[in-house]
């Protein structure tokens, strides 16, 4: 379980970092959405840090920087990265489901669901159709 939650923490660190370059490319309404998404990822990160520390693990800090999968230079690439970030974070939380039970399973499911909903919102803003995927967090 600790390993799965540590992976989720690493993904949350990366997501928080990514919303920086994403936000600056967006207009006001979308920027607000990006800020809300970043705040949600910070909240998940903080919960994970407490949880992992409580289990005697040492929560890994954020890296000083993260390589973006592609340059974010305009609104379109910003929305594409935001979608990709949410899909990736969803996948990590989905992977935590079999490794957890009880309250931690419920928390992981909440996180997966939030990421999936945000990915759908970003796809809608980008005009991507369909805006949903059949199995959020599952590869392929």
């Amino acid at each position: 379980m600790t390993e799965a939650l540590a992976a989720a923490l690493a993904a949350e660190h990366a997501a928080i970092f990514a919303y920086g370059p994403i936000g600056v490319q967006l207009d006001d309404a979308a920027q607000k959405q990006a800020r809300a998404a970043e705040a949600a990822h910070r909240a998940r990160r903080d919960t994970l840090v407490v949880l992992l520390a409580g289990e005697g693990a040492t929560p890994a800090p954020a890296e000083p920087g993260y390589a973006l999968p592609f340059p974010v230079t305009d609104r379109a690439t910003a929305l594409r990265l935001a979608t990709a970030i949410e899909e990736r974070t969803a996948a990590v939380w989905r992977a935590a489901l079999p490794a957890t039970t009880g309250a931690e399973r419920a928390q992981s499911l909440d996180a997966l669901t939030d990421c999936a909903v945000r990915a759908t919102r970003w796809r809608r803003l980008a005009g991507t159709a369909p805006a949903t995927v059949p199995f959020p967090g599952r590869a392929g």
Partner: protein
Amino acid sequence: MPSRNEPAPTTNSAPDGDVRRLSRRGLLRITAGATVTVPAAALTGCGLFDRDPDTPPAPDPLAPLLAGALDLAARHEAAAAARPELADRLAPIAQAHRAHAAELARVIGAAAATPTATAGPTSAGPGGADDVRGMLADLRAAERAGQAAAVQACRAAPAARAALLGSIAAARATHLEVLT
């Protein structure tokens, strides 16, 4: 209780006592043949039929979720048929529910799921914007109930099923987003 390892009943041996001419294989055949004629009731104490064959196996705990996925698919398909202008939004959702049903049937081990007649919003005929709004509200209510059911199933599931059920719960939440 008849057993293949017991000697054949003496009634099967030749009357002149020439039982040695029968091979062991022959004895086994004879004994097996005798077993078939034993009434089934005589075997119930042997542990061969511990389960009453009339009692169906307990339904899989995911059976209601499978039925729910098929129902949701049918509702979206009926709504898309009634209002073609919504088809672009509703068709991918219906397809997702069908995909969920197929995966649930696979893990349950059930026979391939077939569409069932459901109480979908078939009453929604051609009408105005109010009808569309009402139809979408009905679909949202169904998705919300389905999402809650999937969340419960995921929380209660063994590890092997947790990821699939989590994806289904998350997908239903995204459907609500699109239906808004």
